[in-house]
């Protein structure tokens, strides 16, 4: 490369040396106004728009079908405030909250997954693989079985469970800092231990609570109410913007801790806040709909592929998560209709093969 160092710019670029009107080929579109400037990833915006539109379409479809079909036109009319007698109850009370919770929870899981996968530098680092959602589930099951708690109580339990399990995994994986592969392995182990604890809780519980807990544990959107909608959208409203703000730090941490610190990132604080936001998103998702399997796990990689970006795509992952969950729920309701399956079974059908493929690939390439 000695030649490139000493070579002069070719003629084409030399003629531009004075003015240099050509843009640097940086990714995205730059919008400047006065001293303000924003860099927008155009492709990510497009991907989000398309995914969002698809989610709305599938959501409407999902609201319209069922034991009591309602034409799409009537669904739209109901949503716009002109309900008929039947549609008001079925759309407003039964099916709309279900779709909203599905989309919201999917978005929360998607963001959480994208954050953790980037922090751990491994797609296996998602909260549903490394035991954080299991921890949240244990917290939630405890509140259901022991305290017979309301939706709010279940959320508190899930958040506490998620935080405690995250802390435990982190401490167990600690050996002069946390190595990614140690975190993944310790997390998978912790996930099994927590599952065992959940099973134990269930054997000790009243039969009615057991039923409520088991359905919930598969990850179900059946019978979701506006309470659940509130939980998940409040979580998204508060944590979503925080996650977007933290994307910058996440991108810098991707260069390695030392490099990030050299660029002025307070590494410890940045990681801690990212972990907190990630755990809270996953835990509140769990609180609203149970640990829907693999949504967090698949959303990040799919988003990254669609946007074809070197960054962790937090926002696109939210849209992917929402779409995946809504589609999976529609499928779960209709595949064996009139029997409705829990959505978690559907997402597991998608996620499990991907997990196997990833495990075999990482085993081959020696990442794990």
């Amino acid at each position, binding site marked *: *490369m*000695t030649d*490139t*160092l000493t*070579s002069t*710019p070719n003629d084409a*670029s030399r003629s531009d040396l004075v003015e*240099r009107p050509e843009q*640097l*080929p*940086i*990714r995205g579109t*730059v919008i*400047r106004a006065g*001293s*303000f*400037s*924003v*860099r927008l990833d155009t492709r990510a915006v497009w991907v989000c728009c398309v995914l969002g539109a698809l989610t709305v379409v599938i959501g409407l479809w999902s609201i319209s079908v069922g034991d009591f079909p309602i034409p799409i036109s009537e669904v739209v009319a109901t949503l716009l405030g002109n309900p008929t007698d039947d549609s008001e109850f079925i759309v407003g009370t039964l099916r709309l909250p279900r779709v909203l919770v599905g989309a919201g929870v999917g978005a929360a899981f998607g963001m959480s997954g994208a954050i953790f996968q980037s922090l751990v*530098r491994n797609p296996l680092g998602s909260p549903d693989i490394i035991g954080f959602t299991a921890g949240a589930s244990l917290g939630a099951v405890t509140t259901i079985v022991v305290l017979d708690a309301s939706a709010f109580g279940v959320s508190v339990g899930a958040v506490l469970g998620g935080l405690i399990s995250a802390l435990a995994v982190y401490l167990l994986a600690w050996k*002069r800092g946390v190595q990614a592969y140690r975190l993944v392995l310790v997390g998978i182990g912790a996930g099994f231990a927590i599952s065992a604890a959940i099973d134990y809780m269930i054997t000790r519980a009243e039969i009615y609570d057991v039923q409520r807990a088991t359905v919930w544990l598969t990850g179900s959107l059946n019978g979701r109410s506006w309470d659940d909608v509130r939980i998940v959208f409040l979580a998204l409203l508060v944590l979503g913007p925080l996650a977007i*703000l933290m994307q*910058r730090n996440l*991108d*810098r941490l*991707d*260069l*390695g801790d*030392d*490099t990030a*610190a*050299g*660029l*002025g*990132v*307070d590494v410890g604080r940045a990681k801690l806040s990212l972990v907190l936001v990630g755990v809270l998103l996953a835990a509140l998702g769990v609180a609203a709909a149970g640990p829907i399997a693999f949504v967090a796990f698949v959303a990040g990689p799919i988003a990254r592929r669609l946007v*074809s*970006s*070197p*960054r962790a795509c937090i926002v696109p992952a939210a849209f992917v998560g929402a779409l995946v969950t809504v589609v999976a729920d529609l499928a779960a309701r209709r595949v064996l209709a009139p029997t409705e399956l829990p959505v978690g079974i559907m997402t597991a059908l998608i996620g499990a093969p991907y997990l196997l493929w990833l495990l075999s690939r990482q085993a081959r390439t020696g990442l794990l």
Partner: protein
Amino acid sequence: MRFSARRDEHEHVRSDHDRPAPAASRLIAESVTLGYDDHTVVNSLDLEIPDGEITAIIGPNACGKSTLLKALARLLVPNSGQVVLDGEKIQRMPTKEVARRLGLLPQTPIAPEGITVVDLVARGRTPHQKLFQQWSESDECAVRAALDATSTGELADRTVDELSGGQRQRVWIAMALAQETELLLLDEPTTFLDIAHQIDVLDLIDRLNREQGRTIVVVLHDLNLACRYAHHVVALRDGSIVASGAPADVIDPDTVRSVFGLESMVIDDPISHTPLVVPIGSRHAQPPLPPVELDEAR
């Protein structure tokens, strides 16, 4: 160029090196003791980085070179003592403020999969950016200048994965340059490169120093290259400074023996007229060297 070259006064400083340099030092380590968990790596070390010069830190493996560099960049909290930047204790300064004055290139930075050269270099602008100042015109100028200085402009839209080792190292240096700090700390930027690319990177470092007046601290493995390119060498062994000063003054067979435990002959480099260390080794020793006593050597 943003940085004023202030060579003249430093030539002066170097000429009376045997007295400690006057306070022309923005970055100072004051009796720092550094270590991880239980064991101490660097013990009560004092060091002043002369402004506007290239300082090379040399020494055997695991002598604390990288650890010292990390502490100078505020990445490591000293167990005792302190690092002072512009008269302020560096630990008390906000991370971002440090990053505007001092750039660091660690030994093994990680390039995210699929990132393009220009996007990576652009990340060097981080300490100058804010929430709604994500890509200002000065960001663009700085990135352009960094690409030009490292001759990586024509690689701008390539992904970092597809570059050769030498190109990649230049891109990383470009990222550190885009940070526009007068102080630049580089941890073994030539390791894993072949000899031509090593010279390439060191020439680049030399130009950054001469043309832009940047103060550069670089950890180097190769003693002879350190002598060639550095104004000031700091030889470490077991976490202590064994010798420090201009290469011509401090690099002699005694220093090499006490730092590396190696018998050598030091001659004049015919090209650069800096010390050239020629190792002897038992095969060519006349008379044969006594068997190395490991305790003494390491």
